[in-house]
């Protein structure tokens, strides 16, 4: 269990992490989500005692990181793939880490095998691709067979196969009862891996809830209807007390009515339908809405950006739901 309490980090005027309070529980994968520059890496560095917090505290099973006598056997961390000396071979990189924690040399070969780098163990890390660097970093995290694992953006630079491997690795590690804390800026990635979700934006906590709750609260499902007889269709729906919203291009959107009932209604009134399809708003959209206000670096483009004007509103609704 990792507990953060009022964790704050200021660099001069700029607040990188602002009063974060949450807990990372064992036995599950906790996703740590936020746009670029939200303060994820800074938070993780403070958790590992690399950066000193301006205020607040991080406790790992009640202790500070620096008080842990055998850190690699307790926590394994992948901070960034390039946090290694490029001139050193993969084997020697892991060996010096193992030695610093009294981990037997045989374990180095085991983790190299686990991440699939045995064939390049004697090669210098300089020549590694980003994906291989990530694998080596993950090998370092697994070295002490720790009960807590932290990964900062582990899927960055990995090919689809590697991403699939990481996902399963994390799930497997959590299934063994380990605490897994993984950061990402991709909601879709988290939806596949995480059981619990912590969302931050501009250093502030935006959400701390289970993945299931997040999906339930943030994915709107509706039915899209398209018909050449749109006027009649609207009348029929209205007569049944169903609200249809015009969504442009001659389509109607209906919330909260099963697709079967709508199909049967149309058939009973002999209406021609060109489309009758259940739709679901993506989690990515929900995440973007949640963090829209806190995105630090906006890209400006001519194409219409995802609608973020409703952020305030939806966020209020969402917090009301949370309180219920």
């Amino acid at each position: 269990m990792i507990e953060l309490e009022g964790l704050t980090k200021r660099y001069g005027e700029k607040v990188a992490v602002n009063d974060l309070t949450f807990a990372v529980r064992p036995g599950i994968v906790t996703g740590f989500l936020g746009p670029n520059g939200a303060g994820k890496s800074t938070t993780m560095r403070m958790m590992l005692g690399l950066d000193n917090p301006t205020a607040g505290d991080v406790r790992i099973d009640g202790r500070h990181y620096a008080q842990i006598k055998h850190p690699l056997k307790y926590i394994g961390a992948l901070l960034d793939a390039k946090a290694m000396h490029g001139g050193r071979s993969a084997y020697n990189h892991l060996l010096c880490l193992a030695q610093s924690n009294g981990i037997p040399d045989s374990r180095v070969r085991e983790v190299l095998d686990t991440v699939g780098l045995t064939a390049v163990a004697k090669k210098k890390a300089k020549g590694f691709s980003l994906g291989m660097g990530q694998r080596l970093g993950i090998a370092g995290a697994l070295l002490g067979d720790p009960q807590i694992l932290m990964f900062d953006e582990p899927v960055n630079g990995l090919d689809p196969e590697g991403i699939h491997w990481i996902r399963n690795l994390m799930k497997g590690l959590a299934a063994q009862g380990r605490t897994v804390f993984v950061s990402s800026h991709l909601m879709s990635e988290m939806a596949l891996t995480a059981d619990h979700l912590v969302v931050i934006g501009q250093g502030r906590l935006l959400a701390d809830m289970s993945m299931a709750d997040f999906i339930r609260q943030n994915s709107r499902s509706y039915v899209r209807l398209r018909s050449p007889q749109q006027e009649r269709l609207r009348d029929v729906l209205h007569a049944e007390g169903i609200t249809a919203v015009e969504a442009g291009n001659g389509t109607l959107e209906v919330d909260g009515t099963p697709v079967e009932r709508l199909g049967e209604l149309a058939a009973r009134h002999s209406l021609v339908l060109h489309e009758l399809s259940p739709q679901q708003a993506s989690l990515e959209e929900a995440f973007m809405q949640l963090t829209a206000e806190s995105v630090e670096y906006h890209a400006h483009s001519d194409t219409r950006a995802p609608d973020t004007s409703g952020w305030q509103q939806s966020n209020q609704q969402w917090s009301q739901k949370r309180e219920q």
Partner: protein
Amino acid sequence: MSSPISSQPPQQAPAAPTHPAPQAPAAQPQAPQWQGGVPAPTTYTSPIPIRSTHLGHALASEWTKIRSVRSTMWTLGVMFLLVIGIGLMTAVGLASSEYTQVPLLSGGLFGLMLGQICIVTLGVLVITSEYGTGMIRTTMTACPARGRVLAAKAVVFFGLSFTMTLIATTLTALIQSAMLGGRPAGEFSSLPQESIVNGEVIATNSEWLAATVGAALYVALLGLLALAVGAMLRHSAGAITTMLGVILLPLLLALFMQMESLRDLQEFLVEYSPLNGLATLYQLPFMGEEGSGNGWGLLGGLAVVTVAALAGAFALTHKRDV
């Protein structure tokens, strides 16, 4: 010791083809606890025995680090080449004259004046290469006791550079002694009495000690100072430039202080310049007579400065974010 971590994806994802890591399709036994549906235990206990870490672990780790990068081989190799090569050339040059006019082992000085730059460079790189590559974050995560990391680096580097420099200076001294020993001292030689026995130039025991152990200690201490400066500046080029300044600037500044009013300052700069400390150990002080002074006092001075710089490095390393 076998680990339950396997490169195989778990079984609860049957839709996707099972693929182990692409680089090494090593088939490992399936870990049974990964089968779907098994309720998660609350905590995980590793089969790896838990030992508290101490300085010994950090020393082993730093030794692996220093021997596994190419810059160590390069800097030490070039140091050997300079010290022994220039020592040999000096001896050959001196042997062409009929008399020996300089202290017997002093030919080792010139090579070591250049060779010390290699040790200084290595001292800086031992620490700044970690900051430059980001390795320091991995290191400090594996060993959160930052003082221990720095201490282990200092001990390993000092031990290695002292040993290597000692071998180089001893070989050079043996070359000087073999090629120039037993020759007559020049008529106008200013060599001290005890270095001339029966008209022949010899090296006394204290000269031997100063030109081998003394010189090696001096250079290794200078390297340690470089390591401390590197830990404070965290930047390879900056730290190496600073160290070159420390070594060369006092003499350069003194060169331009020819005014009478600055005479005291000039003498101070010359006497306490790091190069003078090394020269005095070889009985060739920049000030005063050849053979005067023994250089151990200046060595002590360097040790005091190095300890102070290390203390500063420890304090800063503790205080700053990694």
